[in-house]
């Protein structure tokens, strides 16, 4: 935790990825790591202030810098999830939850769906099943969709959001993830098969999608993806391995092979971040801190059942 405090930005506060520029992702993850480690599990309003200050009038967050960068759906989802985990006042996230539900990718337009159906057909996917894009006015991808689903599930369990549109997007988002899975399990950015060739899954995308699809643990796609992920614990990157641990931890109760795998993964991660000063990206340090936190600590990416 000392390393995370050392990296706090001077002046306005918050955290950046590698330099001195505010990053919503880095700040959210750093706050979660501090929260998971604190004995009274409290983050002060002053510590939350830099994150709150970046919220745009439309409820979205920019990914980096001040508020001039425009909204980013991944950044918004991770910020909203963080604020809910940290117990921020419900009214601070209400507008953002609505903005997430109302935000549509390009495939929501029938015209774009028609294009994917009849002319732009090299990537295999069902354009009627859509989730969320990284930035507005683009198409949906696995990682932002996963993070939005995690945030919306948490909001649902806390009674912060209701309505038919919310349920529709929640179900459609899960269908989109299942549709974009790689043929032999796992996920990448969202292109499972291109020009008839299956593309390889990525560990971080697989972990996020599994975290989002925890309710669907009984499905073959989810199970085979979990198996694929647990067979790659020799990963040389702390960033991916931390995501693997956080995602897999949610499946301990439904798969007996998860707990022993988690022990191996945590030992390996501890070695990879043995010298945290050598890890440039603050998000990676914070993710590793969360993944190595005692199992009694809250897992901010576990969808509550």
């Amino acid at each position: 935790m000392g390393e995370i405090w050392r990296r706090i930005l001077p002046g306005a506060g918050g955290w950046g990825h590698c330099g001195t520029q505010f990053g919503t992702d880095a700040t959210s993850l750093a706050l979660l790591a501090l929260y998971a480690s604190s004995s009274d599990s409290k983050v002060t309003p002053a510590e939350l202030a830099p994150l709150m200050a970046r919220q745009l009038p439309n409820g979205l967050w920019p990914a980096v810098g001040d508020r001039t960068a425009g909204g980013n759906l991944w950044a918004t989802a991770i910020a909203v999830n963080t604020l809910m985990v940290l117990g921020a006042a419900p009214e601070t996230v209400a507008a953002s939850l609505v903005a997430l539900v109302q935000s549509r990718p390009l495939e929501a337009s029938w015209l774009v769906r028609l294009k994917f159906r009849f002319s732009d057909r090299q990537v295999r996917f069902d354009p009627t099943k859509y989730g969320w894009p990284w930035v507005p006015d683009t198409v949906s991808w696995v990682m932002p969709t996963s993070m939005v689903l995690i945030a919306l599930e948490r909001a649902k369990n806390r009674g912060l959001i209701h309505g038919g549109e919310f349920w529709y997007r929640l179900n459609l988002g899960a269908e989109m993830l299942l549709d974009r899975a790689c043929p032999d399990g796992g996920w990448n950015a969202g292109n499972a098969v291109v020009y008839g060739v299956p593309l390889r899954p990525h560990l971080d995308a697989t972990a996020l999608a599994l975290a989002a699809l925890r309710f669907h643990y009984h499905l073959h796609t989810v199970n085979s993806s979990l198996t694929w992920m647990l067979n790659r614990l020799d990963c040389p990157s702390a960033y991916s391995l931390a995501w693997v641990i956080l995602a897999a931890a949610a499946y301990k109760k439904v798969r007996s092979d998860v707990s022993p795998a988690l022990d191996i993964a945590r030992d390996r991660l501890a070695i990879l971040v043995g010298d945290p000063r050598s890890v440039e990206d603050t998000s990676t340090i914070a993710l590793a801190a969360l993944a190595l936190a005692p199992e009694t600590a809250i897992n901010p990416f576990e969808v509550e059942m």
Partner: protein
Amino acid sequence: MFGGSLLAGTGALAVRRMLSAGLVRDRRRARSRVAILHEDSYAGPLHRALMEGLRLFDLDLRGKSVLLKPNLVEHIPGSEVNTNPRLVGAAATAFLALGAKTVLVGEGPGHQRDTVLVLAEGGLEAELRERRIRFVDLNRDEVRKVPLQTSFTGLDCLWLPRTVLESDFIVSMPKMKTHHWAGVTLSMKNLFGAVPGVAYGWPKNLLHCKGIDRSILDINAAVPAHFVIADGIVGMEGNGPLHGAPRNLGRIVLADDPVAADFVCTRLMGLNPLRVKHLAQAAEFLGNGSPERILHLGEGFPTDTQPFEVLPEFAHLRP
């Protein structure tokens, strides 16, 4: 086939009209310089070959910060997807030997979010550690808002990494590959990796939505590479940039103009650069494509080029 050629031709015509209307500035110099180096394998003395090649250009690098921008997509065991790490390492050492103040290597992979994993699995991390060269993840660098010089995409600005904007000398180091969306991926397409994922996501989908060819032009007009070292020792043909077949070309291409470099590389691949849409347009204002305006240093153009395989959609690129 005819449609693809027509598109490239009408695109070039559109740029000519923009030039005459003063909407884009003609940046072409009188002549550009290119050197084709013969190198059969990555196990050879790459550093020596690069030093000899770079000396042909008489570059003034004293006191300059150099950024090497390789093409890293993801690691696929047994496949030549990325710019070879030995070539990147050799280039770093060569630029330091030629007087550069600093040499950094920077890249922002567009598909794989875990840059550290791409570096480690592909061997570049070990290569750079051994040579004590720093790597910058351009996907997570600090970003600055940069007004665009051209408006092919309709965007008025791009967020770009501080490291790219503050470097004195940017070297694009592409892998010579066919590309299933753009036809070829060379030094100009390689600059997609200078657009930060932290701002635009993985992949940088806004650029795809605005049109890959148009985005290539806007990015290269905003942050032009000063030099090119193209890895054509082993290239990729067919379904590139990830799942094509390796193609032993045995060449490294050096150039002081990305457009000239990409024209020569495309010809080395046995394809017609004037039928690659973004190249045909770039040659109207960004750099030189015409053989009369490209001076060949070192060995001449080989006479025995066998065209690279391409997907049926790009059959028009072949002679």
